[in-house]
């Protein structure tokens, strides 16, 4: 006996039926599907073979590596310390590891919505960054001092990324607000500033920061090369992020600000309570994308002479016995980048879907 509830439901096609409709309808589609299956199977087999089956994992068998057809992961086994930590002293590697872990935890925590007020996010990042800095630099709590020249590898990459983000985000908000200012002088100046920095390659700005600014700034204003480069990078980041935030601000209906006006709210209250929350929701995908791009771009500092992960990778295989195994080293570094970048961009996509649901 068919109940009323059942008879109101649409007929459900089986999983097999859906698949065959999508993938196998028509001769062209079927051929394409079969080719794809074949290609993926081949690709998967080749990768698994190279990475796992025919590869060498142990540390000492350089000779075996020369004969093997698979990947020679021994090079990673032997050289991973240099790749991850650069020139950091061997005994203190635990500090570098811990610092990286702290920073990663900070990044993951930023994704939890409990933290999504300006105050909590700032406290989280400042705390995380300060912990990172103390762990790496030392000088307190009985830790030996290790100056930034010795920092390297993954830790340096993460440090640059975090520093650029912390300095760049508040700056980008200010720039975005400045460009939308009602005073035409400020709006034009900020606009020129943003357009100028956006039109230059990042490398030019980093190079200028590293090499030129010692001439231009008076002696007391100069800092270590690392900090100059970070400031330059942060300005570049802020200009791009400011445009994203500005787009988000522009998408807010003017009535929102008017409602704030009629309630008697001041400019800063309106900006921070009404405009910015909505602007961030509007342009969140672009904002997160900018972070993703920035993480990838940290690799460029290698050109201005920093020993971050790419440079340390080059150093790792550059010596003697491992020179043939550059592919494994690059694959390892690429894998590390891939994990960070892919997670971040997946998170951005997830956020985008989630925020769209509650949208007015």
């Amino acid at each position, binding site marked *: 006996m068919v109940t009323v509830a059942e008879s109101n439901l649409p007929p459900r096609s089986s999983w097999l039926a859906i698949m065959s409709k999508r993938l196998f309808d028509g001769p062209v589609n079927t051929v394409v599907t079969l080719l794809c299956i074949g290609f993926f199977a081949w690709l998967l087999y080749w990768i698994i073979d190279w990475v796992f089956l025919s590869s060498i994992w142990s540390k000492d068998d350089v000779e075996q590596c020369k004969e093997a057809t698979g990947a020679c992961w021994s090079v990673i086994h032997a050289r991973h310390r240099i790749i991850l930590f650069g020139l950091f002293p061997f005994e203190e590697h635990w500090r570098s590891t811990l610092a990286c872990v702290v920073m990663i935890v900070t990044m993951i925590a930023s994704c939890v919505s409990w933290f999504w007020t300006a105050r909590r996010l700032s406290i989280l990042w400042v705390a995380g960054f300060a912990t990172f800095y103390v762990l790496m630099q030392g000088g307190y709590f009985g830790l030996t001092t290790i100056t930034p020249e010795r920092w390297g590898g993954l830790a340096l990459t993460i440090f640059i990324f975090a520093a650029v983000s912390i300095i760049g985000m508040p700056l980008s908000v200010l720039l975005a607000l400045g460009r939308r200012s009602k005073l035409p002088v400020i709006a034009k100046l900020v606009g020129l500033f943003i357009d100028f920095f956006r039109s230059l390659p990042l490398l030019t700005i980093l190079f200028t920061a590293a090499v030129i600014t010692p001439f231009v700034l008076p002696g007391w204003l100069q800092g270590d090369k690392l900090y100059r480069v970070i400031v330059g990078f942060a300005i570049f980041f802020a200009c791009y992020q400011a445009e994203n935030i500005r787009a988000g601000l522009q998408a807010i209906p003017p*009535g929102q600000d008017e*409602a704030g006006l*009629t*309630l008697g*709210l001041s400019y800063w*209250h309106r900006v921070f309570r009404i405009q910015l929350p*909505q602007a961030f929701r509007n342009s969140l995908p672009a904002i997160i994308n900018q972070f993703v791009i920035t993480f990838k771009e940290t690799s460029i500092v290698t050109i201005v002479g920093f020993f971050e992960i790419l440079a340390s990778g080059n150093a790792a295989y550059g010596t003697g016995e491992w020179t043939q195994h550059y592919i494994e080293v690059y694959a390892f570094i690429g894998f590390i980048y891939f994990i960070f970048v892919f997670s971040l961009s997946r998170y951005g996509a997830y956020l985008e879907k989630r925020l769209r649901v509650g949208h007015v």
Partner: protein
Amino acid sequence: MSDQQSNAQAAVTMSGVNKWFDEFHVLKDIELNVTLGEKIVICGPSGSGKSTLIRCICKLEDHQRGDITVLGKALNDDISNIDEIRREVGMVFQQFNLFPHMTVMENCTLAQMLVRKKSRKEAEEIAMNFLNKVRIPEQAMKYPGELSGGQQQRVAIARSLCMNPQIMLFDEPTSALDPEMISEVLDVMVSLAEEGMTMVCVTHEMGFARRVADRVIFMDGGEIVEQNEPETFFNKPQNERTQLFLSQILQH
């Protein structure tokens, strides 16, 4: 009548107000006096400048010539003046303009805590009081996107009332609502009027005007064409343009 006027306090005074949008002369020599406790309804065809007029009262639009005085303070470019005035004047928009990223309760308490400097507890009590008044206390923790148009507009009214304004401005509050939700909003406005709030409403709802207004003003082409008590206005319109407008709008 002049005795009444001199005893009653002036809420809004507009004299010789002119406004241009580029070349378009949108307000022409407006003279308007609203006393405290008065309820004014402004009607007229679209483009007649009625929305612009009340937006000028809370300085959402600037006027190029003439004087506007609100609650004894002149409306000029002095920012602190404008802020003081805006605190005492509440406005309800056609598009509701609720803050979508805050709950109903947060919408109502935000300005109280930031501008009137009330504690969260106080602000929430006041907010619940007004939410009760507009008859949606149970929606306090919901987001605007989860409410119907009529409910959103009532929240908007409550939000303005939480600031304890002396004057309430309404810019076509029911024009964006589906017909079945109009009456719930109008009911709230009527009870507000019966409590003695000074109101200036731009609306097409003539039934509301008849019931509540002390004066009905007809605007056309940027000028105030006719103003009168509702009885006289609707039954014996004097100006030809008023008669034409009324015949068009009162058909249904």
